């Protein structure tokens, strides 16, 4: 064996040795990461975000090492390490979403969409066996001729996102942050919140308690009214939502399409003779037995009627 052949031989050996050593270390670190993933759900909730970040960082480092080692690794090992890194990331994502859903007394979005001619009560979305108070966010979209009753004294609302409703009434308690509305037509909402934004909507009547200036953009035929829902526990609801009951700016609307000093033609305060204070007709004992006809008749009493 001449010297040149020997060098090649040694190089090949050390390459193999390096690949072997790398593989061992890679698997060791992978096992450690898998173990910390499995134990994640045992940790205190407040620690979980930083733990997850730590794990993600370790995975990223592992991936980087594998990339650096590409020169030494046989093709099979390259593929395997790639796949294993990807699996780790997927496991991490799965673990996080499982932890989130297992904490669902605190972490939840209720989605209400694609209904027609229906009376929808929040109670049908709640787990009736539990009497604990809960916090939810709501995503409400694509409803026509519906009545949505979200009032429930054991439920606090984090935020409401609304899109694409027609001929629909939403009666809601008070929202801890903001309400965002897009693409609605001939609806009436009864809501309280810190911030109110409404875009691309028309023929709306908004009964509102809001502690900052409400805004409208690309809207017309909008009527604003003060929040007139009175039900037991209202004071408590204001407190829970951290809303100042004495501060209501429902009539300080800013129209983002109307920057002049004169009043915007796109909205007005509701005439006093039409200000509704009694909402009892929206309280239905048996939502399953209400006819389409009676839903329509309720809607026609409350919704916007063009003159």
């Amino acid at each position, binding site marked *: 064996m001449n010297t040149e052949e020997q060098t090649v031989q040694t190089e090949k050996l050390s390459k193999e040795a390096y690949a072997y050593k790398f593989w061992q270390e890679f698997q060791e670190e992978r096992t450690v990461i898998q173990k910390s993933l499995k134990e994640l759900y045992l940790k205190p909730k407040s620690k979980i975000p930083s733990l997850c970040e730590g794990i993600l960082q370790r995975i990223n480092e592992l991936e980087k090492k594998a990339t650096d080692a590409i020169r030494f690794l046989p093709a099979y090992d390259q593929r395997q390490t790639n796949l294993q890194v990807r699996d780790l990331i997927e496991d991490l*994502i799965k673990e*996080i979403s499982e932890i989130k859903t297992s904490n669902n007394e605190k972490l939840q979005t209720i989605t209400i969409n694609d209904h027609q001619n229906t009376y929808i009560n929040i109670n049908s979305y709640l787990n009736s066996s539990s009497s604990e108070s809960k916090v939810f*966010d709501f995503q409400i979209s694509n409803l026509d001729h519906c009545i949505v009753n979200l009032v429930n004294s054991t439920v606090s609302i984090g*935020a409401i*996102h609304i899109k694409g409703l027609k001929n629909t009434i939403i009666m809601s308690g008070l929202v801890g942050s903001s309400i*965002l509305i897009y693409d609605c037509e001939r609806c009436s909402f009864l809501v309280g919140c810190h*911030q109110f934004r409404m875009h691309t909507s028309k023929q709306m009547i908004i009964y509102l308690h809001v502690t900052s*200036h409400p*805004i409208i953009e690309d809207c017309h035929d909008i009527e604003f009214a003060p929040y007139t829902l009175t039900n037991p526990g209202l004071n408590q609801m204001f407190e829970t939502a951290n809303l100042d009951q004495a501060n209501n700016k429902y009539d300080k609307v*800013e129209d983002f399409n109307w920057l002049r000093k004169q009043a915007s033609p796109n909205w007005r305060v509701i005439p006093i003779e039409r200000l509704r204070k009694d909402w009892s007709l929206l309280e239905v004992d048996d939502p399953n037995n209400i006819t389409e006809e009676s839903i329509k008749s309720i809607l026609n009493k409350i919704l916007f009627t063009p003159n």
Partner: protein
Amino acid sequence: MGLLSILRNIRQKEKEIRLLVLGLDNAGKTTILKRLNGEDINTISPTLGFNIKTLEHNGSYWRNYFEQTDGVIWVIDSADRMRMEDCKRELKALLQEERLAGASLLLFANKQDLPGALADIHIREKLELDSIVTHHWAIQACSAVTGENLLRGMDWVVEDIESRIFSID
């Protein structure tokens, strides 16, 4: 180290950086700024203008704002599941802006205090952040209301910019 002290240190070195805070409406941009500045956040009214929509309609006015921008902070309403697609599209469009080439990108997955907030790891997927190769980026889950993790995000973006532009001298 807080934002103000970071900025003060930079000033002492007679160096300034310029950050743009952008995002869809209702993302919490004003609340983040006020929180960082120690102002009251309880009665913030929605801000007129200076969002991506105005940007399209009113390009010439906005364009000046892109000049000499060292970093972009993109704010996301983590609970707004219905508009994640819009958010992705607007972000993509923004990153094509030539004057932002080389700017560091911090994504704030804001409103983590809300019950329906998506985790930063899901937002990373939904916004396809891993496909961003034109900018240094990082995503930070945070809550402007509780103040959680705002400074961590600011630390990252400031350090990333410093290492990029001040390492020359």
